[in-house]
């Protein structure tokens, strides 16, 4: 009896694949615990959450829409969609990253910048270039509001950083498909 196999109870991982990032739109009953259910599924099964947004979108029907950005191998992404779909309070799951026309993805950020003199002028100039709006101002600070794809927001924050960014608040990604059809 010669067993040199690992002493674990379980087989070692033998399949490795490339990972991909997907954006999922999930239509759920807006009931207590539904978000915990979704998040619990992700943490319990070891899936990643890169971004998550939730809000009730259809008040009469008490439906909320969750947008999740996740990363995994194609097999894991397929699992995530199926695991979400089988949950009782989840009505629909759509992979926004595999639509024939790419979906629109937007994020909103509010960026607080503190500074005086030339930095203030430079901050306003940058904001203008990025179409960010000033939503609060004091003699030594601005708060900018910017919407757009995450990359644009990243770019904006990076450029603002040396000008005195003190705080950033981001919504996470919301996504919607193009064209006349609904979800």
């Amino acid at each position, binding site marked *: 009896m010669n067993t040199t196999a690992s002493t674990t109870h379980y087989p070692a991982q033998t399949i490795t694949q490339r990972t991909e990032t997907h954006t999922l739109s999930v239509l759920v009953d807006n009931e207590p615990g539904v978000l915990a259910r979704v998040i619990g599924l992700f943490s319990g099964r070891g899936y990643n959450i890169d971004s998550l947004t939730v809000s009730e979108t259809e008040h009469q029907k008490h439906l909320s829409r969750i947008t999740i950005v996740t990363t995994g191998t194609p097999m894991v992404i397929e699992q995530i969609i*199926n695991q979400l779909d089988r949950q009782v309070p989840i009505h629909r799951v759509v992979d926004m990253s595999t639509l024939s026309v790419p979906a629109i993805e937007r994020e909103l950020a509010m960026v607080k910048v503190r500074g005086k003199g030339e930095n203030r002028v430079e901050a306003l100039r940058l904001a203008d270039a990025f179409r960010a709006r000033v939503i609060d101002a004091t003699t030594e600070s601005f708060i900018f509001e910017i919407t757009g794809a995450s990359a644009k927001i990243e770019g904006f924050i990076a450029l603002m950083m040396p000008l005195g960014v003190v705080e950033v608040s981001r919504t996470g990604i919301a996504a919607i498909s193009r064209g006349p059809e609904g979800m």
Partner: protein
Amino acid sequence: MTREMTGAEMVIQALADQGVEHLFGYPGGAVLPIYDALFERNDVRHILVRHEQGAVHAAEGYARSTGKVGCVLVTSGPGATNAVTGLTDALCDSIPVVCITGQVPTHLIGNDAFQECDTVGITRPCTKYNYLVKTIEDLPRALHEAFHIARSGRPGPVVVDIPKDIQFAKGVYSMPEEIPHKGYRPKLKPDADKVKAAVALMTKAKRPLFYTGGGIINSGPAASKLLRELVQATGFPITSTLMGLGAYPASDPQWLGMLGMHGTWEANWAMHDCDLMINIGARFDDRITGRLDAFSPGSTKIHVDIDPSSINKNVKVDLPIIGDCTHVLEDMLRLWRETKAKPDKKTLDGWWKQIGNWRARKSLAYHNSKEIIKPQYAIERLYALTRDRDVYITTEVGQHQMWAAQFFKFEEPNRWMTSGGLGTMGYGLPASVGVQLAHPGSLVIDIAGEASVLMTMQEMSTAVQHRLPVKIFILNNQYMGMVRQWQELLHGGRYAESYTHSLPDFVKLAEAYHAVGIRCDKPGELDAAIIEMINVDKPVIFDCVVDQAENCFPMIPSGRAHNEMLVGDAAERLEDAITEEGKVMV
């Protein structure tokens, strides 16, 4: 029926309207109104268990042996947390259970009240669905939905958590006409073109194999019947998981035995070498596949499952079919019969010849003894002496469970109740209580290990109280045998804490419970002792003293492939295995 009543009365009314005859439970402060309502009527019979885990396992045994939903009632806090192991077990094995838990009154929720726990939070990952009912208006619907969700699609446990003030509140009860949940609609009928594609693959197969699982049992007796017809019509070999035993008769020549970690040589080799795998209602569990990248490397894989999340989870398949096994089998069988083209008989005969060679290895063989009872022998005798009876088997977890799966031959579905997915020691005794209650005239045997059975031994009181003559057949090897086996094979024989020290005298223990105790330690006396056990119309603990050192073979060590299976030294040697028998066509 529409009528005003209290929440507590609604609970019992809903159970009665759902056809529940037996309720397994344990009282406590937060469910007293429901117990009060129960006291008033006698159409729902309450079975008092001795631990809430036992209530859930009993409900599982009840459900698995009848196809009905098992029902549980427990109190808040510790009542609910004690039920968690059972709920998780039911989730892993897809057993329909509705568990009603009491909760502290709504105004105290979140206040760390006495016996408060976050029941929906704790049970969310171990149930198919759960409810915290916060208004009396929501209660009737939640109760009926719970039953619908528990039994439909891929079955599972559902918890309904009811605060005590809601149990006292008055409201209008009616049985909802349309139960289906708005967002929950499992797909039952398969896509026709998928089934067609599957049958086309089957007609061209050279080395086909059916691989079936618990999904067939869950789908109901019709699925087992259709499976038999399809397997016989095709002439293909069939193997099954632990959970699927009984769906196909073990006495049939096309049956290869169970596959997986402790499966037969022929089943695992057939899995490894097949060119077409037809998986019906099994889920490619790691105990089945072994090393994933070496699992059935050359086969085209068809996978039938009611749960889309089972598809491509562990093993990438070529043809997924989403649907209920009964519907899929029905369509497959019809199409198969309509199709003229059939696999080449010569090729199929060659495949059977190969299987005959594997069978000749006699991988379950063991060295019997005249002095000491071998555990395999004990099960063989138990089977032989009960095979003409109406028998149901439950098990605990360990070597004895695997030997039961290997040596007890199941001819019918719903006769075999075991904890597969979770592997819960302590499952078998309470499960046997549930089974016996559902089948009062039948012989119900828990094939047990001495360590496992002590985990829920208190349920002997339940069996005695309710006059349930269950037979607890302990293969007493004085070890956590399965642990000892792993330590022997993988940890240099260092038996850390796997000796079951200070065991009770099981005969005296039985007597202390007002049950009957029997001990046997001689092979020559075994038959008579088993017959004595069968003939006692009372609960029995049978202490079958067996060889302490026996290991369970074949075995695929974890992380290994099917063709790296270990066999015991009593099996035929590889070189000698190709015998006359192997040449005989089946």
